[in-house]
């Protein structure tokens, strides 16, 4: 069934000047899967996400999306690949000088031939999907942190991407809002078959949404375990894995 890799990450290494952050990262993401990347603070999750989405070039290694190599693609091809996915950044990344509607409209105006009325309708649909009806004309600075996350999700959904990347969607959200975001992620995945790559610390949310989990470790500079959330929780062989998923301090 869902065994077709849509993202292939192979031997990715990342170095900032002499400082190695990640080494030999290899994994696949399959179509229609929700893959959660977890790991301690500062282990390189956001950095890894930047490599996968082509925002930064890995020092070595390859990233393929839909079979197309992103790492050595020229700008043109890169843009074409990037248009197929949406990203929710750790600090939302909404354009501060534009209203929520303009944030979403920017993509639709630039990459579709829709009329103004159609665009306006789509904005309403996306905003209400994330529970932000009536906030079209607010600036990002006029809404709360949790609302910003949801608005950014609405923007990420603007072009109906087939892959969504999330960097810590539930951080800074209250449990109820976080749970509703989880539901939204699950619904999008189930109804549209969107592939999701989620960076998260939130164990409750991981148990809720993850099909598969990858654990990164700062010392190992790479993946130290892969499996379902349940498997990780019962992993008695590797103390680090067990501690992480059972919330035990080292």
């Amino acid at each position, binding site marked *: 069934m869902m065994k077709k890799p849509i993202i292939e990450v192979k031997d990715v290494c990342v170095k900032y000047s002499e400082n190695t952050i990640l080494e030999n990262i290899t994994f696949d993401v399959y179509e229609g899967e929700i893959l959660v990347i977890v790991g301690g603070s500062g282990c390189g999750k956001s950095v890894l996400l930047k490599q996968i989405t082509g*925002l930064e070039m890995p020092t070595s290694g390859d990233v393929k999306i839909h079979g197309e190599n992103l790492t050595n693609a020229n700008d043109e091809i890169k843009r074409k690949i990037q248009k197929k996915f949406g990203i929710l950044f750790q600090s939302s990344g909404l*354009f501060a000088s534009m209203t929520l509607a303009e944030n979403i409209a920017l993509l639709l105006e630039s990459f579709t031939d829709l009329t103004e009325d159609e665009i306006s309708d789509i904005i309403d649909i996306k905003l209400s999907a994330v529970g932000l009806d009536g906030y079209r004309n607010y600036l990002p600075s006029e809404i709360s942190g949790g609302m910003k996350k949801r608005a950014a999700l609405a923007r990420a959904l603007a072009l109906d991407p087939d892959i969504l990347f999330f960097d810590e969607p539930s951080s800074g959200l209250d449990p109820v809002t976080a749970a509703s975001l989880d539901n939204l992620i699950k619904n999008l995945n189930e109804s549209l078959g969107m592939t999701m790559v989620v960076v998260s610390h939130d164990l409750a949310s991981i148990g809720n949404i993850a099909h598969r989990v990858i654990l990164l470790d700062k010392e190992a500079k790479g993946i130290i375990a892969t499996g379902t959330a349940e498997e990780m929780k019962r992993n008695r062989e590797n103390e680090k894995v067990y501690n992480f998923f059972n919330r035990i301090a080292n």
Partner: protein
Amino acid sequence: MLISNKHLSLIKDEILSSKSQRAGTYFNISFSEREIVLTFAEPITLDNSEYYGIDALIKLINDKIEILTCDFSNIKHYDSYLILLINNLKELSKSKRLAINLIGVTPKMAKFIELFGKEQSAEINNIISTGFWENYFSHIGQLTLTGLTDVKLFIEFLGEIISKFFSLFIHPGKMRWKEFPFHLTKSGVNAVPIVFLIVFLIGMISGYQGAMQLRQVGADIYIADLIGISITRELAPLMTAILVAGRSGSAFAAELGTMKVSDEIDALKSMGFDHIHFLILPRIIAVMFAMPFLVMLANFAGILGGMLAALSTLELTMVGYLNEMQTALSFGDVFSGLIKSIVFGFLVSSIGCFRGLQVHGGAESVGKYTTAAVVTGVLTIIVADAIFTLIFQSLGI
């Protein structure tokens, strides 16, 4: 007794006198042949911190002494100062090869010591132990390296901007023209009053200074030559560029830096937009476009300021001044100033954008690079001006 009673009382006096200047806690010393016992008194807190006489204590320690015992059984109030104290005592005991012995530590206190009392002293020692000169030279080396890397990165950035700029001739729609009038207003129109005022005053000041000198040799009329040429060739373009560096260069760095910190630039790139076309070019083109107009205005302001100064101090009429100005000024004077201003505008705005994109980490980095944008901007303008002077001279303009 290893130490004579007289010696001991001297040392005790020393400890007590150092303490008497600051009210606070103290400790009692008692010692036997092999052991020094310090009994601390309440409280050991930061706001009540006290010189504990550790330096004086060192004098008490000799080869025979093996144990340093610290008694905390009287202590009920303590905070981080306790950690500081224990770290100091530990270091002391290490350097003197003493066994340190803490007694009267309640379980609560032990937990506190464990929580905060991690050994960081090794690292701190390392930092302190590198000599001043070593630090000094390695600092200079590091600054040079960063400077050179910045230059290299800036040249790469310029290359990218220029190639993207020329690609506009093929695909003009790539740039976000919507932003252009906005930046033109902000960097150009809004700069008019300050540019006018500053260059007007500069013209007036150099008018006064020049008039003083020219009057002595009776060459009053040449004030027009002096003002006209210095303003149009040098002062107007230079002052305008410096003002624009302060207004727009810094603003660009701060705006782009903030966008970088809040992931906006990454978001833009990930949506398939080119941040150079989208954010940088509208700003740079707006400044380059505005600069010659600002400089023309500045020329007018400077000549006007110089005229007011000249008329009020010299035997000169307005018509005489303006007539002389017309004969003195050549097309090349004004033209070279305008050409310079476009290049200055390009440099200032691209440095502002470059510094903004260098921001990484958090908000404090935005401030740092905003400052850098102005400093580098002004420096680069002056260097470029010197180069221009050489070029124009050799071309005879």
